[in-house]
């Protein structure tokens, strides 16, 4: 049993469990699945700065912060007790294309050459963490949601603006990987 849990889970298991989060939150207490709202609540709680967008009763939405706190803890539990002892398997073509960009594939979930504190204090780190994070935070709020709020909750409830947003999420990702990366990683 523990061996099955330790192996990476297939997409249909993960997809089904993530999909079930939608009815779970709705039935546990009329809550709508969406994670990027937590970033807004953190702003409202910590630095509202008299901005109207952050002037609301964030305490009523505090469940969302409990939820993301749980996600963080879940990441810890999975890594500590259920983690896969084998190196991560990455598609051969992806390995080759990343190598061409000077990003070596190692055995962990994330390339250590990028996601370490050493790279934080370089131009690369600035782009990957600071610019990347800013785009995620600004973009999701401007779009009115992220992959959970739009792609999963929005499409589940047949909202066409969510379909538009989901297509634009993908378009942005394709543009970054195919148009910006080849240039960006040569400069950095």
């Amino acid at each position, binding site marked *: 049993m523990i061996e099955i849990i330790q192996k990476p889970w297939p997409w249909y298991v993960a997809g089904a469990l993530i999909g079930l989060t939608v009815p779970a939150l709705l039935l546990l207490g009329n809550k709508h699945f969406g994670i990027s709202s937590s970033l807004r609540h953190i702003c409202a709680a910590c630095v509202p700065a008299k901005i109207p967008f952050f002037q609301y009763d964030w305490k009523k939405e505090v469940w969302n912060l409990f939820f993301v706190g749980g996600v963080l803890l879940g990441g810890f539990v999975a890594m500590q007790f259920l*983690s896969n002892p084998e190196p991560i398997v990455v598609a051969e073509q*992806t390995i080759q294309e990343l190598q061409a960009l000077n990003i070596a594939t190692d055995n962990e*979930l994330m390339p250590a050459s990028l996601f370490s504190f050493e790279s934080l204090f370089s131009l690369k780190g600035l782009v990957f963490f600071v610019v990347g994070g800013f785009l995620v*935070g*600004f973009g999701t709020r401007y779009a009115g949601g992220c992959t959970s709020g739009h792609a999963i909750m929005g499409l589940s409830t047949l909202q066409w603006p969510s379909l538009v947003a989901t297509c634009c999420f993908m378009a942005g990702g394709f543009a970054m990987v195919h148009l910006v990366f080849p240039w960006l990683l040569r400069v950095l």
Partner: protein
Amino acid sequence: MQASNQDLKSTPLVVEHPVECEAPNDQVAKESLIGSNIKYAVVGVLFGIVFVKAEIISWYRIQEMFRLHSFHMYGVIGTAVVVGMISVWAIKKFKIKTMQKETVVFHDKQFHWGNVIGAGMFGLGWAITGACPGPLFAQIGSGFLVVVVTLISAIAGTWVYGLLRERLPH
């Protein structure tokens, strides 16, 4: 009698939630800080475990997705949407109530240009960081502590959006 009906109409029973918040809290019943909210933390823990175990938090999986070298992420998102759709359909069809015996509330989303521009910006950031907001938290939990910087930057991005909101096309 007429007057009291009017009064009822003018005081909405629905809990007010922030404009455009995609995760509104529609519960009417009172909630206690820890007792009521702990169950969402439990769902979050399970969710975080799935993120790590299906390697959704992996930067490589996001690269594979945008390079069309693997079906994995498409499979995950596709299955999640189908399961979500069936669940929502069942809740509506069989009028399933919440644990507090309340009717489940759904909201219609209004299109605005942020759905295009903001979503495109998020897509750019998604490919760089290899994470959407959910996986950011799971990455930190699973030991990639440098992602705290990404998270702080994402919070800053949200804040700057709040600051500039009135001046952006919607």
